[in-house]
């Protein structure tokens, strides 16, 4: 047992391990990115604009909203403010991952933060929940694979978008939700069984809170507010 623990600590995951750990999430990036490109074409964005949007904004939900708002000629300021609110949850994701990289340089920390997504966050916390070590190289492998796949799939969607008008009918838009479901189940699975009831209770609180908040604030804000409140409940009710 002792030996197994030591072995685990020695096996530091490499850049290529990061690429490997990204593979299960690729289908999500590819299908959503493809759908993104199609939506962007219908919002009259050029291929160059689609590529820049994917490479520089690099945020699935925000890119969809930007396209929708561009299509109805919303003011630039409103579009940027909405993008900010939609992506504000990254503060929480980033704050969860950052404590594990306190010894890395500022420059490398910025690099890891810039490419953080819901999916790479999910893969990272799953690795942590399984008590496996994470390294800078591993996270960079994971992040860069996701980033490149995302940009390419957005561009492909933009190129082929003329022929596929409605990506929804293929169920591809559901891949993101399916991925979150899998990541949540994997989290619960790697949890200490004695804590499971506590977590299930918190999930129920989250569902109630999200539904309730949706009557008062936008869903993006509801995500942040509900997470902050229920995580606090989690700490208080933890025995």
């Amino acid at each position, binding site marked *: 047992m002792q030996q197994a623990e030591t072995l685990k600590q020695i096996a530091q995951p490499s850049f290529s391990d990061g690429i490997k750990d990204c593979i299960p999430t690729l289908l999500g990036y590819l299908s959503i990115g493809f759908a993104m490109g199609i939506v962007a074409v219908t919002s009259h964005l050029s291929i160059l604009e689609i590529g820049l949007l994917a490479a520089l904004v690099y945020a699935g939900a925000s890119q969809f909203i930007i396209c929708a708002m561009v299509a109805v000629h919303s003011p630039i300021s409103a579009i940027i403010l909405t993008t900010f609110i939609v992506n504000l949850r990254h503060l929480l994701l980033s704050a969860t991952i950052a*404590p594990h990289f306190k010894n890395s340089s500022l420059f490398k920390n910025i690099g890891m933060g810039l490419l953080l997504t819901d999916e790479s966050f999910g893969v990272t916390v799953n690795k942590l929940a399984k008590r496996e070590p994470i390294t800078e190289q591993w996270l960079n492998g994971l992040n860069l694979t996701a980033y490149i796949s995302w940009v390419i799939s957005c561009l492909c969607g933009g190129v082929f978008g003329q022929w596929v008008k409605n990506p929804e009918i293929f169920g591809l838009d559901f891949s993101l939700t399916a991925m979150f479901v899998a990541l949540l189940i994997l989290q619960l699975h790697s949890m200490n069984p004695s804590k499971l009831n506590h977590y299930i209770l918190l999930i129920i609180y989250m569902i109630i809170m999200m539904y309730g908040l949706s009557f008062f604030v936008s869903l993006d804000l509801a995500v942040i507010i509900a997470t902050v409140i229920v995580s606090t409940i989690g700490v208080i009710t933890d025995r």
Partner: protein
Amino acid sequence: MSLQPSILWIILGGMLVTSIPRILPFMIIRKLNLPEPVLKWLGYVPICILTALIVESTLKVPSHGITSINLTVILAIIPTCMIAIWRKSLLLTVIVGIITMAIIRFLLG
């Protein structure tokens, strides 16, 4: 291959506002030792935020009107959840989820 100035501004502004929440914690947390309760609190964030993102996809909020539940998504989540519990595979869950959703949409027209 055109690049409209307004779109360029949206992209650059979007880049700025999506970068800040991503890198700020990475820049700040290096400098300080977070107290135990804060670390504990951060430990609850993954479960909460993943739940929030799933619930978000099941809700529809029209600009004028009250929240409604997207039954198609709920219907697709059930088998997706079951396959995730049964096989514990990310990729398989995503594939089954996509197929389930396509079937449900086909059946419901």
